[in-house]
């Protein structure tokens, strides 16, 4: 029996690991889009994070410093995007694409001497007796710290957007930048900060791939994770908890598909491994068709350039 050989606790554990990188990137992009900016460079920032995080971790021997480096790498690339779109008023779609193409190239260049190396191991967080609970201990309470930090980040972003004053300003800027400007808010400053946050998150997501999930560095290793994160934001209709639900759902599909491959199902590996992309498209269609709620939840000023005329 094929499905019988899959342990649900292991599956659940693997699902959380598979979901974390795209959730990190998605929660960052969610904040960026909430501020009215569409950054299509997530893939590029993720792969730069994966690369730089790996390089720093290998050279210092510290995964923690690796993650810090990755966040800075993603942020540095996002600053380039901010410079282009906010200061020089370039087209956001084109600039995001440029970011992705540039990031893929630069990471391949920087990482070429790191192919085939094993990074320092990120320890599992010691949760004491929690890890010994049957089923739940194995499934939920035996992960590295990034898994939990990511969930905490989702909670923080949810609280920030919903209850904090700064979060409301950010939403106002994203909803109607002219009105926000008239009220005296600094539209561009808010947006640049949001873009930087998004870059740091994408970088962390990339480093999670190269340091924990895979863990290795290979050229182009994100294989579309950044784009899936972008789709996830639409799927979540710009709500943090729904982004998390979506990421876990997606992680589940990825893990199930990998397990089916390992169990030797009679479907060629290539067809199984295209399922995550196909399912992402199917979900996008479902959400955007308007039958599902929240499809019109997109920020009002999304992807519209802002130029104060006075």
């Amino acid at each position, binding site marked *: 029996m094929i499905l019988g050989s899959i342990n649900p606790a292991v599956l659940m554990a693997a699902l959380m690991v598979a979901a974390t990188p795209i959730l990190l990137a998605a929660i960052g992009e969610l904040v960026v889009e909430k501020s009215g900016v569409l950054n299509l460079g997530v893939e590029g920032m993720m792969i730069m994070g994966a690369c730089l995080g790996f390089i720093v971790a290998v050279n210092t021997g510290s995964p923690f410093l690796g993650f810090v480096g990755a966040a800075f790498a993603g942020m540095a690339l996002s600053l380039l995007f901010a410079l282009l779109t906010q200061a020089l008023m370039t087209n956001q779609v084109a600039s995001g694409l440029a970011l992705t193409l540039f990031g893929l190239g630069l990471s391949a260049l920087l990482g070429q001497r790191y192919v085939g190396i094993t990074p320092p191991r990120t320890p599992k967080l010691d949760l004491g007796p929690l890890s010994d609970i049957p089923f739940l201990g194995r499934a939920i309470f035996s992960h590295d710290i990034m898994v939990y930090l990511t969930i905490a980040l989702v909670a923080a972003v949810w609280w920030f957007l919903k209850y904090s004053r700064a979060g409301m300003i950010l939403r106002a800027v994203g909803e109607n930048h002219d009105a926000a400007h008239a009220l005296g808010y600094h539209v561009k400053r808010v947006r640049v900060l949001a873009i930087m946050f998004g870059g740091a998150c994408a970088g962390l997501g990339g480093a999670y791939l190269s340091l924990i999930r895979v863990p290795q560095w290979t050229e182009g290793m994100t294989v579309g994770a950044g784009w899936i994160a972008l789709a996830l934001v639409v799927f979540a209709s710009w709500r943090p908890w729904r982004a998390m639900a979506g990421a876990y759902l997606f992680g589940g599909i990825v893990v199930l598909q990998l397990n089916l491959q390992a169990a030797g199902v009679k479907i060629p590996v290539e067809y199984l491994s295209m399922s995550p992309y196909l399912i992402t*498209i199917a979900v996008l269609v479902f959400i955007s068709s308007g039958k599902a709620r929240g499809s019109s939840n997109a920020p009002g000023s999304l992807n519209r350039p802002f130029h104060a005329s006075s």
Partner: protein
Amino acid sequence: MIRLEKRKEPSKFWRIANPFLAVALTMIAGGIMFAMLGKDPITAIRLIFFDPIFSETFGSYSRPQLLIKSAPLILIAVGLAIGFKANIWNIGAEGQYIIGALFGAGVALAFFPQPGWYIFPLMVIAGAFGGFLWAMIPAILKTRFNTNEILVSLLLVYVAEKILAAMALGLMRNPDIAGFPGSRDLRRYEAAYNAELISGTGIHWGVVAALIAVIFAYAMMTRHMLGYHVQLAGQAPRAARFGGVSPARLVVICLGISGALAGLAGMFEVSGPGGQVRIEFASGYGFTAIIVAFLGRLNPIGIVLAGLLLGLTYIGGELGQMMLQLPGAAIQVFQGMLLFFLLALDFQTNYRIRLTQGARA
């Protein structure tokens, strides 16, 4: 203080001048990058941009390569540019390129080893149709369900890559050689071989197709009603709708044209320079073509020049790898930088820098 002032009309001068300026800046920044990699920047830049054409030793090999590399870029970019003008973003040309190649090769492999003059034309039709079909997925999802065409077309690239791998390992694998992935070599099958038309020039049917596509696109954009609708929809979508332009129809047309052209490019590649369906067949032409389209100012004539330039960087990159051990990824960085500089410079096209003294007027 410095501030930006929006121009009433985009500056014509900067529109033309910026691509040249961007290339110059990329050469400088690229030189710095090469110096940081420990290579002599002047030699490296010369090797990439001049030696493929003018060098005595490499020229005879690399000159024909120029057209071979540029033709698919131009073919794809011409199609993409039409969509970009109307704000319809097909960024999955790489996927349409792969599917076009598979359709074309599929026809060839189905007829193997029969001779027949009709086989190659059938492959051309199949290639265009394959790319068209693959582009219709985002198009129909966009018009029927309002699904974002950027994400769908891009995600389909990964799906196409998986199909390519499945074909190379399964259905299309050469049955005569056991154990190796990859199809029969189409260059050894005369009826399907997209051979050089004039020996030593690199001109194959794909180059001819690119030329025809450029002429058609130019005529369409400047002389035909459809071209006018495309421009109108891009610049004033509301006015276009009142003017009776159907947005859905435009999405289908733009994605259809660019998909078919990308499919053609893939078909000419697999039946000629590429030779066979392999896992590593896709080489990023579909993504580089996006840069070509922007660098060429979304104008068919400009795209020819931009396509030749980026084709040159491919060959120069290979030369650099051979002669200076430059990493292959350096060329990707180069191409990315080019797009960055172009976008950054374009603020001059739409804005004017004003220096104001003290308080704002």
